[in-house]
């Protein structure tokens, strides 16, 4: 049986923890709103981009002169996995779910005898993957100094990927990130960016009627690298919103658990206090009776 003092200390400590988790939850809620706004602001650009790219790739994609970014290198041996996670923890299963998906994919590819290279964005993913896939990691992008992810960061990551592609380091590139669904649900997603896959359904019907200046191929060559940057940027934004959402619900749970624990320990504390009083009373009464 812990002493009354121990119990009291424990309750105070849990109360402090609850204050912290509550504060973190509110900070995450504020950041989530901002992240969602950013994700929404980026949507028109990404949608337009995808529609135009889908139309272009539908008309050019089949020809032999199609750029390598669209048609691929013709091989399927070396896979680059770009694993995008958060820089910080305390956000529930957010980082683990991305890492789990990436790990499954990596093991699957390795089992097929393919080469896997991993580029991590965000510290947490690197830490988790380092344990068993350290030999495959070829690079890391650190965003811990970045307060608010902008297009510039996406461009830098895309440039890194494209430089490696031009150097012939890989054949297929896939992005791993969490797609924001709601505060309680984020969906780990794997998205192939090289060779580019555009859904023809996005294109609409009117695309074939466009004049292209300079030429379809010229535009495609100009736009494909931008398309990669746009996809990376979208992934970063989705990830940002997902991270805050996950942290918010994780901290909400933590706050509630702390409340439950405080109630439980307060009951135990009160019971022990009453037991102590009863015991003292019994001692006094039996002492008086003995006289």
């Amino acid at each position: 049986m812990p002493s009354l003092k121990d119990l009291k200390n424990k309750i105070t400590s849990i109360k402090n923890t609850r204050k912290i988790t509550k504060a973190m939850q509110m900070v995450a809620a504020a950041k989530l709103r901002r992240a969602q706004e950013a994700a929404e602001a980026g949507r028109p650009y990404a949608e337009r981009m995808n529609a135009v790219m889908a139309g272009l790739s539908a008309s050019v994609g089949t020809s032999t002169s199609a750029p390598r970014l669209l048609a691929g290198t013709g091989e399927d041996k070396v896979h680059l996995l770009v694993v995008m996670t958060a820089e910080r923890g305390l956000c529930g299963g957010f980082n683990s779910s991305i890492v789990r998906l990436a790990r499954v994919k990596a093991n699957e590819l390795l089992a097929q005898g393919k080469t896997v290279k991993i580029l991590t964005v965000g510290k947490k993913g690197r830490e988790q993957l380092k344990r068993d896939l350290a030999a495959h990691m070829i690079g890391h992008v650190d965003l811990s100094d970045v307060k608010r992810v902008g297009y510039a960061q996406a461009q830098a990551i895309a440039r890194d990927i494209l430089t490696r592609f031009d150097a012939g380091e890989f054949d297929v590139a896939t992005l791993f990130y969490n797609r924001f669904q709601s505060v309680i649900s984020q969906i780990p997603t794997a998205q192939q960016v090289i060779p580019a896959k555009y859904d023809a359904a996005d294109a609409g019907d009117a695309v074939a009627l466009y004049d292209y200046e300079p030429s379809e191929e010229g535009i495609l060559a100009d736009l494909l690298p931008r398309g990669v940057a746009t996809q990376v940027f979208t992934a970063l934004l989705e990830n940002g919103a997902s991270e805050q959402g996950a942290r918010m619900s994780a901290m909400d749970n933590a706050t509630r658990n702390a409340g439950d624990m405080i109630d439980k320990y307060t009951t135990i504390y009160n019971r022990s206090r009453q037991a102590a009083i009863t015991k003292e009373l019994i001692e006094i009464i039996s002492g008086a009776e003995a006289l």
Partner: protein
Amino acid sequence: MAATVQFDLVSPEKRLASFQAVEVQIPGTDGDMTAMAGHASTITTLRPGILKAVGSDQTQAFAVTGGFAEITAGGVSVLAEQAVAVADLSGTVLDQMIEQARELASVALPEDKDAAEKLVQDMMALRQHVNH
């Protein structure tokens, strides 16, 4: 009143402008063009330059660094990689853009070198244009 087109300018980070415009002057890769209502459907890439949209009651000009424009009979939507309203365009912003372009040019692969150099030159021309 002249017929108008729906003009949208979006960058990856936000929507910068959206209004009815009478004409839109676009710095295309192959040369400047002006889109008005009823223009043939065209998709063109952009070079760094000034994009100007003239509406019936307002005129807005933006410096864009690249991207593409989608022109249809009833609308012009410009997807710019980076766009800054000319009113906010100070020397330092331009210098940063030029600096970035130079950096790109210095690391560009041999086959991309010409394009990167051209980007730098276009940027310089843009600065001169803005400073008059």
